[in-house]
C-alpha cells in the first residue's frame, strides 16, 4: 500500500511540475509586457527609459530560462514570489482569496443539494404527473439560463427594486457575520440555480431507477411506510450519484466562478486570476494556477488512494 501511495505521490508531483512549466511558457509566450502595461495605464505613453528601468527592477530583462530557474527555486523554498504590480506577496493574497471562493462554491453546493434533492425525489414519486412536468421544465430553464443573467436579475430585483440586499460586495465574517452571510447568499444562490437543476435531474433519475428495484417493491409489499422507503432506500441510493456529480462540478467551479465573482464583486480567486492575466502579472498567474492544479491533483490522488483501499487489484496495477 505504501509503495502504491509513494508511486502516486511521485506521479502527482511530476504532474504539478509539468503544469507549472507549461503555464510559465504559455504566459510568457503571449504578447504583453507587464512593465509596459503597468506604466501605460489610462491610455498614456510611458517614458521608454522608465519602462526599461522597471523591467530591470522586476527582473524581466533576464533570459527566460534564468527566470524559470529562479521561479522553480523559489517554489522549492515555498516562495510564490511577489506581484509585479505592487510587490505584494502572492502566497498571502491566495491565502486570503482561496477560502472565499471555497466558501462560495461550498454554499452553492449546499443550497443546490437542499433544493435539488427533495424536489428530485418528489418528481420521481410523482413521475408523469403535473408536478413532475413543471419541475422538469423549471430544471430545464434553470440549466439553460447563463449565470450572469441570473445574477443580474437578482441584483435588479432584490437590490435595485426591492432594496432588500446590497447589490454586491464583501464583508469579512469576523467583521459582521450576518452581513457576510447576506452578501454570500446572492452569488451562492446564483451558482446554485444551475447546480440545483443538475442535482434535481440526477436525483430524479436515480430515484426512478431505485423505485423500480425488487427490494423496494418488496418493502412496499411488506407494508413499510412511504417515509421509510424514501429515507432508507430512495435518498440513500440516489445520494451516491448526487455526491459524484456535485463533486465533479465543484472541481470545475474552483477556477470557474469568474462571472459570478465579477457580477457580485466577490473578491475570490477566479476574479483575481482574470485580473492577473489581464495585467500579465506572471507570479500571480503562476501562483493561482499552481494552487488550483495542486487542489485538482490532490482530489484525484485521494480518489485513487480510496480506490486502492476498496479494490486491492488497483494497487497492483
Amino acid at each position: 500500500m505504501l509503495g502504491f501511495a509513494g508511486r502516486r505521490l511521485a506521479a502527482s508531483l511530476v504532474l504539478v511540475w509539468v503544469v507549472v512549466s507549461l503555464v510559465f511558457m504559455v504566459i510568457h509566450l503571449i504578447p504583453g509586457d507587464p512593465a509596459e502595461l503597468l506604466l501605460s495605464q489610462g491610455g498614456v505613453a510611458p517614458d521608454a527609459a522608465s519602462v526599461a528601468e522597471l523591467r530591470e527592477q522586476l527582473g524581466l530583462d533576464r533570459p527566460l530560462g534564468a527566470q524559470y530557474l529562479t521561479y522553480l527555486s523559489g517554489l522549492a523554498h515555498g516562495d510564490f514570489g511577489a506581484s509585479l504590480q505592487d510587490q505584494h506577496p502572492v502566497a498571502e493574497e491566495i491565502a486570503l482569496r482561496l477560502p472565499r471562493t471555497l466558501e462560495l462554491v461550498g454554499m452553492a453546493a449546499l443550497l443546490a443539494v437542499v433544493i435539488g434533492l427533495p424536489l428530485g425525489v418528489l418528481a420521481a414519486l410523482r413521475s408523469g404527473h403535473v408536478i413532475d412536468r413543471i419541475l422538469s421544465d423549471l430544471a430545464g430553464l434553470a440549466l439553460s439560463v447563463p449565470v450572469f443573467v441570473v445574477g443580474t436579475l437578482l441584483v435588479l430585483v432584490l437590490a435595485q427594486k426591492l432594496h432588500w440586499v446590497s447589490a454586491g460586495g464583501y464583508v469579512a465574517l469576523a467583521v459582521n457575520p450576518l452581513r457576510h452571510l447576506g452578501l454570500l447568499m446572492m452569488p451562492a444562490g446564483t451558482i446554485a440555480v444551475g447546480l440545483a437543476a443538475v442535482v434535481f435531474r440526477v436525483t430524479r433519475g436515480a430515484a426512478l431507477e431505485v423505485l423500480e428495484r425488487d427490494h423496494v417493491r418488496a418493502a412496499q409489499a411488506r407494508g413499510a411506510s412511504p417515509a421509510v422507503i424514501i429515507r432508507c432506500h430512495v435518498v440513500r441510493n440516489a445520494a451516491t450519484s448526487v455526491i459524484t456529480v456535485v463533486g465533479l462540478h465543484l472541481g470545475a467551479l474552483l477556477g470557474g466562478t469568474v462571472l459570478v465573482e465579477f457580477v457580485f464583486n466577490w473578491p475570490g480567486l477566479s476574479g483575481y486570476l482574470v485580473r492577473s492575466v489581464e495585467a500579465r502579472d506572471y507570479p500571480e498567474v503562476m501562483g493561482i494556477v499552481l494552487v488550483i492544479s495542486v487542489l485538482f491533483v490532490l482530489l484525484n490522488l485521494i480518489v485513487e488512494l480510496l480506490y486502492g483501499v476498496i479494490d486491492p487489484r488497483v494497487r497492483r496495477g
Partner: protein
Amino acid sequence: MVLSVNRRGIIAGAAALPFLRMQGARAATPGVLTFGLSAPPSAINPWANTGTAAATIKLMIYRGLVSFDPAGNLRGELAESWTREGEHGWVFKLRDATFQNGEKVISADVKWTIEQIAAEKSTAYFRAEMQQIERVETPDDLTVRFITKTPLATLPIWMASYHLPIISRNSPKGSFVGAGPFVLKAQERGVSIDLEAFPGYYKKGLPKLKAIRVLAYPDENLRVAALQSGDIDLIEYVPWQAMDAVSANPALKLDAVEGAFMFLVFNASKPPFNDARVRKAVAHAIKRDELVKAAFFGRGQPLEHLPIAASSAFFNPELAHGWAYDPALSKKLLAEAGFANGISCSLLSTAQYGMHKDTAEVVQQHLAAVGIKVELNLPDWATRVAIGNRGQYDMAVMGTAADSNDPDGIATIIDGSLSPSYVRSFGLKTEKITALLAAGRAELDEAKRKTIYRDLEKVAIEEAPLVGLTWRSQGYGMRKAVTGFQNMPGALTFYSGLTFETASVD
C-alpha cells in the same frame, strides 16, 4: 419563557436569511463618503503612472506645488505663487503647510522630490521632463528656484500633475508621506481603501469629510446598481447607457463632461498609410454622429479636428471641421494616392473594452463605403498595447484624455519624434509638428502661443498624424446628498479627485 430550537426552525431561519433587509448596506454614516471606483488601483506610487484609479487616490493623499481649481485654471497648492526669472528660471514661493508626519513642507523636500523623479533608477512618469531641469536651488526654506536647460513655459502645468506630488524627504524607506487632505488608514488589496481626514491639512476648514471609504466595483452595471440601491454615495465612470437612468433618478445626480476622446492612429512606416492623402481619406470617410450614437449612446460629440476642446482658449473655430464627413473627397484623395480601386488593411482595437470594439466596428462600415476594406483585429488589451508599441498593425483605435487642457497636453499623441508608443502613430515623424510643439513650450506670450498652436493644427489637419473621432462623456454619478464634489472640465476630468477636499455628505 422557554426558547426551543428545533430542526424545522433552523431550516426556516436559514432559508429566510437571503431575504433579510440589511440596514448596514445603506451608505448613511454622516461625514463618511463611500466611493465606487471602476478598478482596484494596482499600486499607489506617487510619481509613476499606474492608471486613473490610482491617480484619484493620489489626489486624496498628496498635493503638489500647483493644481487646478474647479474651473480648470492653475492654482497654488503647496506653492502660493510662482514667477518666471529670466529665460531659464522659475521661482516658486512655498506656503506654510505640513506633511502628514507633522513636519513642515520646505524647499528641501521639493528639491528631493524632483531629484527622485529625475534619478537614473526612476520609473516616474515625468522622469524625462524633470531631467530637463538643470538644477534646483533652495535659497531659503520657502523658496525654490528651478533652472531649466531650455526655456520651459509649461513647467507650472507639469507641476500640477497628479504624477508630481511633493513628498517628505524624511519618508521612511518604501513609503511616501504627502501633504494631502486625507491619510491612508487601511487597504484591503483589490477590495477597499479607507482614508481619514488629515487634521493638519493646510487649508483651513478642509477637508469637510471625516473619512472616505473607497470600494472597487470593476463591473460597470454593478457600480450603477450599488449607487441606485444606496450602497454607495458616489461612482466614477458612469457607463454611457446608464447616464439617462442616473439623471432621471430623483435621489441621484449626474455630473458629466466631455473630457476623453477616441481617435485613430496609423502605421506610417509602410504603405498605404505612409501617404498623408490616404490618412486624410480615412478622416473624411467617417460619420462621427453615428459613432457617438453607436458607441456612446449619444453621450459625446463628433471630433473632426485635433482634440482641443471648444472651451479652450486655443480652440480654432475655423479648423473645427477640418476632417468633416465628405466621402467624395475621400475617394478623390485615394485616387490621387494611387488607390482608386480601394485598399485592404487591418484595424487594431480591443474586445476587452466595449467602446473600443464598437468604435472599430462603425469605422469599419464607414471605410467600406469609400473602398477601404478593413479587417478587425480585436485581442485583449495587453496584447493590443504590445502590438501597438511594436507597430504590428495598419490602423488602430485609441482612446485617452490629454495630459492637461493646454494644447501641449496632446503632444504625446501627435509628436512622432518621441519613442514608438501605442498611443501615437507608428513611424510618423512630422518635423513641422515637433518644431511647433517645441516653440509652443518655450513661448510665454499667450497670443504668440495661440498663433503657434493654430499653425500646428493647420499642419495636423493636412498631415493627419491622428484622426479625431469622438469626444466621449466622462461622468460621475452621486446621491443628491453629496455636495462639493465636482467633475473637473475637459481633459482634467481625471483630476476630479482634487475636489474630495470640499466634498461633504449628509
